[in-house]
């Protein structure tokens, strides 16, 4: 199987007043058409890894890698024009909170049409048709009505579905989902996840699922990378999670309160400095 994405020794550095902070320190992995989870706490570099692949590292920061290749295209040396063409068309990203990541002054339908017409030469009528089909695919009951609504007029779950529709309308091969359901209610979370799961499976996309919730990720993905302080500390098949070896992974697994387990106090992470080495 040829790799869809190859990442070798990815580093993201942020210059700050107190010196350079390395948020991602030498991350390497390859991704086929599979579901890969990246898990870690805030500040572990999981989101910056996703953003670097997408080419969304902030301008003042510096992203470098020995190799960062998507389907044979070297992303490091790619000119900005090529990266813009890839972004949205072949690599798409779903962000955490629809309240902040949708354009507040543009109707949902127009945002989806904009994405599509940026990447494909289609007529207005056809673009509208495809946007409506896509809204129906993310199980929005009345696509024609939602098409004309603005982001503030829809609920969080609906907004997140609209974002998924927007990201998938151009038919990407790689989807990066950065905490796609963290801002949603538990009941809505499952709906959105099952929609995402179905579409990823149907279209044979590669998926990178970034989250702090190890249990959620392991129930959703085939393989999980656990990150701590900018490095991958453990890579494990989701089905093997119970046999995780690294104490950090075990700590993340155990610290969640579980219904029916009477553990007082909850086990907490005892962070060891050597994990960050």
């Amino acid at each position, binding site marked *: 199987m040829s790799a869809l994405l190859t990442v070798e020794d990815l580093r993201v550095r942020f210059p700050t007043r107190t010196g350079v902070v390395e948020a991602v320190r030498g991350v390497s992995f390859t991704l086929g058409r599979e579901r890969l989870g990246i898990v870690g706490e*805030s500040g572990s570099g999981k989101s910056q890894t996703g953003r670097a692949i997408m080419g969304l590292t902030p301008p003042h920061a510096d992203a470098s890698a020995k190799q960062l290749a998507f389907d044979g295209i070297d992303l490091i040396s790619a000119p900005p024009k090529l990266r813009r063409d890839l972004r949205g068309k072949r690599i798409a990203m779903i962000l955490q909170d629809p309240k902040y990541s949708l354009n507040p002054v543009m109707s949902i339908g127009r945002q989806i049409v904009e994405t599509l017409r940026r990447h494909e030469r289609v007529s207005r009528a056809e673009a509208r048709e495809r946007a409506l089909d896509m809204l129906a695919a993310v199980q929005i009951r009345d696509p024609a009505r939602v098409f004309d609504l603005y982001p503030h007029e829809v609920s969080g779950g609906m907004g997140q579905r609209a974002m998924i529709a927007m990201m998938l309308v151009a038919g990407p091969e790689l989807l990066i989902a950065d905490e796609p359901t963290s801002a949603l*209610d538990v*009941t809505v979370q499952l709906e959105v996840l099952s929609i995402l799961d179905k579409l990823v499976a149907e279209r044979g996309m590669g998926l990178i699922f970034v989250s702090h*919730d190890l249990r959620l990720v392991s*129930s*959703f993905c085939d393989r999980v990378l656990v990150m701590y302080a900018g490095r991958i500390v453990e890579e494990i098949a989701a089905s093997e999670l119970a046999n995780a070896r690294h104490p950090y992974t075990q700590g993340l697994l155990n610290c*969640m*309160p579980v*219904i029916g387990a009477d553990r007082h106090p909850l086990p*907490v992470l005892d962070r060891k400095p050597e994990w960050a080495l």
Partner: protein
Amino acid sequence: MTVTVSVENLSVVYDDFRALDAASVQVEAGESFGLVGESGSGKSTLLRAIAGLAPVSEGAIRVQGRELHGARRDKAFYRAVQMVFQDPYGSLHPRQTVDRQLVEPLAIHGIGDGERRILKALDEVGLGSGFRFRYPHQLSGGQRQRVAIARALILEPSILLLDEPTSALDASVQAEVLNLLEQVRRDRKLTFLMVSHDLGVVTHMCERLAVMQGGRVVERLTSADLVAGRIAEDYTRNLMVASKGFRRKSA
């Protein structure tokens, strides 16, 4: 046991939206009581109404035997009842040091002996005096929530209203904050009224809970009942399923 917080047929109406619709909850002294439901179910509104932060249109609130009217609360109320909010980024003053945030409630209530109390409060939430003169932006989310808890505890209240105290935090930090809350409750014999959308957190922290939907209390049960699956309402069952995490249907 005596009822310390009693809410009867409470309604909160914003224009033509009923955020809370004749909800009743009784919390006994010394217990930890949970409110669960999805966004918009009115669980936070109930808490805010008790604290005087939501317009009450009908119903009665009684705290420690005293009936509360309108949205005004006197100083004695705030000495007995303190609140911790969801978002530690939003609930601390960005331009005040931890020290000033902790001095403020003491100054309002005319309590002396600030030095000792501040050090004690910081120590109690596990921060130590090194954090005393830092600004909120110099702290992590978990540390900020600890400051918010210290601020609530410094007046030595007997009731804490907790509005999703850990949902803005990482899972690993959540465990630390939950442990801290349990410990201060044990040490000070506090009463907790805790709102959360996470059934795991609520069953871990609370003995009894009320499930809310659309501004109404749809079911009251004990955590033990919930764990054992003795559930009467479909809505509660749905929440239970949702809290178990994602399952692929075909698999």
